């Protein structure tokens, strides 16, 4: 397949266009959900989480990091491949966060449900992006072994203290929002008539 180098929308087959639009709508919807998840997560961790001056440094998760500033400079297909890879790694991370939160906040079913939903939705969005990529002729990375990030987080969850786990969870929820947002932005460039 020819790499859709051009970042401008192109004419697709109707079913592809519908798929892109559907995926884009999903990403846009998940953007709002991610904001709600982050808000709910912060609210359940206690102070100073959520206070204006509290901003713990980003923790590095092996295999997953936030979208780099140079992300926008990459070709669209590469960006989508990165989006798909990140969305593939996020469900495991979100599940790990949910498990830890189930111990910390067992009586907060909404947070646990949101985390569970976020993992499922991230997985669905990742699959959708991969489908779009496949339709565009750009093969995404296949489902590999468990992402390193998940392993790292699980290890950190067990070994590190609860505070670190909280910060990690915050980081994962933030990453989820960033990648969903970035995916939405990348997909928007594929949607005819929806160029930012």
């Amino acid at each position, binding site marked *: 397949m020819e790499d859709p180098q051009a970042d401008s929308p192109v004419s697709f087959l109707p079913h592809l266009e519908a798929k892109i639009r559907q995926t884009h709508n999903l990403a846009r919807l998940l953007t709002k959900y991610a904001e709600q998840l982050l808000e709910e997560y912060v609210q*359940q*961790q*206690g*102070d*100073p*989480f959520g*206070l204006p001056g*509290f*901003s*713990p*440094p980003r923790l590095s998760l092996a295999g997953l990091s936030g979208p780099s500033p140079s992300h926008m400079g990459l070709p669209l297909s590469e960006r989508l491949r990165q989006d798909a890879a990140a969305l593939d790694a996020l469900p495991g991370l979100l599940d790990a966060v949910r498990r830890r*939160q*189930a*111990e*910390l*906040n*067992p*009586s*907060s*079913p909404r947070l646990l449900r949101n985390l569970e939903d976020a993992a499922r939705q991230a997985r669905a969005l990742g699959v959708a992006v991969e489908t779009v990529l496949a339709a565009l002729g750009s093969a995404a990375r296949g489902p590999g072994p468990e992402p390193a990030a998940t392993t790292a987080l699980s290890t950190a969850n067990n*070994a*590190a*203290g*609860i*505070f*670190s786990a*909280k*910060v990690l969870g915050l980081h994962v929820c933030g990453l989820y929002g960033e990648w969903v947002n970035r995916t939405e932005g990348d997909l928007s460039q594929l949607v005819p008539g929806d160029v930012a």
Partner: protein
Amino acid sequence: MSESRVAEFGFFTKDRTACFRLTAPHTAMGAYSWWKEPSWMVDSKRRRMTPNWPWLLSALTLLQVNAVQAHSLKRGSAQDLKCTTKNMQVWDCTWTAPVGVSPGTVKEVCIKDRLNSCHRLESTNIKIAALSPGDHEVAINYLNGFQSKFTLNENDVSLIPDTPESLDLSADFSTSTLHLRWNDRGSAFPYPCNATWEIKVLQNPSMELVKLVSFNTTLSGRDIVHHWNWTSDLPLQCATHSVGIRWYIDYNRFSGYKVWSDWSPLKNVSWTPNSETNVFPQDKVILAGSDITFCCVSQTKVLSGQIGKTFCPLIHLYGENVAIHIRNISVSENSGTNVVFTTEDNVYGTVVFAGYPPDIPQKLNCETHDFKEIICSWNPGRPTGLVGPRNTDYTLSESISGKSVPFKRFETLTNESYRLAFQMLPGQEIHNFTLTGRNPLGHAESAVFINITERVAPHVPVSLRVKDISSTVVTLSWHLPGNFAKINLLCQVEICKASSEREVRNATIKGAEESSYLVAVDKLNPYTLYTFRVRCSTETFWKWSKWSNEKRHLTTEAIPSRGPDTWREWSSDGKNLIIYWKPLPINEANGKILSYNVSCSSNEETQSLSEILDPQHRAEIQLEKSDYIISVVAKNSAGSSPPSKIASMEIPNDDIIVEQAVGMGKRIFLSWHPDPNMTCDYVIKWCNSSRSEPCLMDWIKVPSNSTKTVIESDQFQPGVRYNFYLYGCTNQGYQLLRSIIGYIEELAPIVAPNFTVEDTSADSILVKWEDIPVEELRGFLRGYLFYFQKGERDTPKTRTFETGHSDIKLKNITDISQKTLRIADLQGKTSYHLVLRAYTHGGLGPEKSMFVVTKENSVGLIIAILIPVAVAVIVGVVTSILCYRKREWIKETFYPDIPNPENCKALQFQKSICEGSSALKTLEMNPCTPNNVEVLESRSIVPKIEDTEIISPVAERPGESSEADPENHVVVSYCPPIIEEEIANPAADEVGGTSQVVYIDVQSMYQPQAKPEEEQGIDPGVVAAYKPQMRLPINSAVEDFAAAEDEADKTAGYRPQANVNTWNLVSPDSPRSTDSNSEIVSFGSPCSINSRQFLIPPKDEDSPKSNGGGWSFTNFFQNKPND
């Protein structure tokens, strides 16, 4: 919580104390040496008492050398000998060689009371086996022959154990706990003996003593390893901690000194930092309300430390390490309380969970529902504030069986009640349960000891079924899950009728395993809808099960238990007998009544009527007036009821007095005297009195032994008259005993009685009224109220009768048979307002009013006229008589003699003036055109003058003057006889006025003179009559008069008005009369020469008469003295 805090404060206090105690042994020893010194000196003095002076010198030398050796010697012993022991078995003695003697010259040391007690040696130190208690003489021989002797006693030996050696010092950094392990080497000591240990903890790098603790152990003759744990307040990660130990042995058979051992070498515990964790303690669970210290190990400067959102002051440890101390920490939220340290480039943190240990499980209750498992429930009590892995774990243990069951927690479980199932073991009835709750902060437990057969709360009975046995008996069956084979069940059956009447019956049933149970329920009513439900317990009652589901059941029908209540009435024409009966109540109908059979029988025959279906409760039979017995039978699907019978014969009602009764609410109370002749029931029937015959609303039967009853019916309405009939029942039939009319409640009449006026006279009115119909009376008539008062129709005053108005007269007519009323003592030809109202106990009815005018009273009128006339006549006659008798006095008073004016020369002058017209007695001259001239008749001048001395200056009636000339009517008044004559004056008419000559009798002027001033005052403008100059100064015209008087004074005599120039001819018609509204105008008439005023001779100027001129009040009073 507070205890813990106090304990920690105590810890710090001890530490501080320990800081002093670190040096205390030395100090104590020093003090002890100082204290022992005098004792030793005393001993030295005693030693001086001995005759061995060289030895004494040697001893003194030793004393000087070993002055600081405190407790080694006893009295009389060598001062430089010091013996110690580590285990009370071997004494280690050292001494100092005397001055001048080399320590290597020691030859031997001999103990006197021991065999082979000399020990060869070449030093000043010797180890000897412990000596027995008591003094022992020791001699030290030197090579040079010098010998030192002294007494050695166990009391002088110091027991200084070896320095303890700690085997191991470890740290649990997660809990900040130090673990110390050491061997007491008890095998080296006699046993039992006590050992006191002292352990110190120092915090690096300042080596600050943070803990000093002592405790006792007992040496048992064996080597024993001891443990000591200590939890640091400051996390061990934040500073290196060092631990040392020493000990002290107290053996009661050793009488020497006991001295602390030396401190063991310090052992250190330090933490190797890693990059992951920098804040300690990590994820600690602590008691809410306690204090805690968090530290942060950092290579960079820590900017702040906070718990939650509260920033805390930093405590600098060493390097960049800092700590914060939290006091009285509050219960954490679910996810814990965050503790955060912020450095220049990072954020580190930890989470602390502050909560409570488990509360003692409350209301622990264990029971079984089915003898298969025991359900224990409890209330956890105070919330711990800890969730997730830190939540309380409960374990239920049964001590007899040794089984334990953990409690599986569901996080959504509320704190209200927890339940846990324990599987029963076959054959075990007694159970001893212990429930233990445990969380990181502690544990609590609660126990219960039960016999499970006494703690049975069965499950809810299920599958409840009802089966008919008869119309009054059913069986109930149900299933009760569980194994109750060894006990009896106690069950309750609740029976509920449709009328909400509830009955509970108990039944004891032998229990079975997984069985259904059956009970019979009897004494039910036929054809009745019942609702059954069941619950069970055991004979050894503990709890009832819940009620089973309800089961509704209708019992089967039975024949009606009795015949219906019957009554009969003859039709109005007397040809038909109407049979009434009442439907049977459901408890007597015993089923659904389908129909009724009515039959009548006489001696000859029995006539059965057709079957009458249920809704109808009435039958009409055409019978002759012979005696019949009427039977009524009710039928349902189960059969027929016994017949109800009633005779058809007429009921005599002779000589019955109708009585009255009033009820209350919807009830009316009736009573009667007992009558032994009444052998069967009484019957009371009633009907609306306005209904036509046969009248029957309802009836009731009352037992024959009753003498009263209360009749109640929803059909009763207030204000409606009902007839009640009480019948007594004898063997010969019914007999009317009482007839009563009554109201449930009396109301006020709704109409007014219709009344008319039958007769009217001048002083009375007879009214008549009619009865009010019963339907409109609405109560028993108690009387009438009749009001009347004077009044016309439509006069507001009489429209309504105001209460208490004094004019209203009221008559209360309580004799209701009275239908007429005569109202007397009225006024003739007067309108009266009559009002009539009827009243009952319910109140006053509306009013009806009428206006009636009484006739005229002619006699009174006549009397009213005659009496004033008679009085006037009598007064006149009396006055005439009086005047007649006093006529002389009157004449003197009112008519004194007047001089004859004929003698006056002025009259001659008058004649010459008036010569041209002899007929005229007055002069009318131009421009004077008077409208009205009063002329004094001159035909009989002399007599008249004599009779008319009094002259009214003004004799005018305003009314007459206005009629004569409404504009300006000038009247020249004179005093002629009262001859009034109107003379036409064409000349005057031509000038627009009429000339009127009025002759006024002087005598008639007497009365008007009474108020001359008032009349002038009323209308001075109108009174413009002749005014003689002699008038009293009453008004402004007097000024003119005064001027004339002045002129008269100048002339000094009478000055007739002949001087026409002085006349003031002012007339309304005169051209000079410019102002018709001007003040009183004096009119000087030329004819006034005829006036008597002019005729008064001036010679009488001095006299009042002549001076005053004419009649006046003054004159009147002046004349009075002459009377």
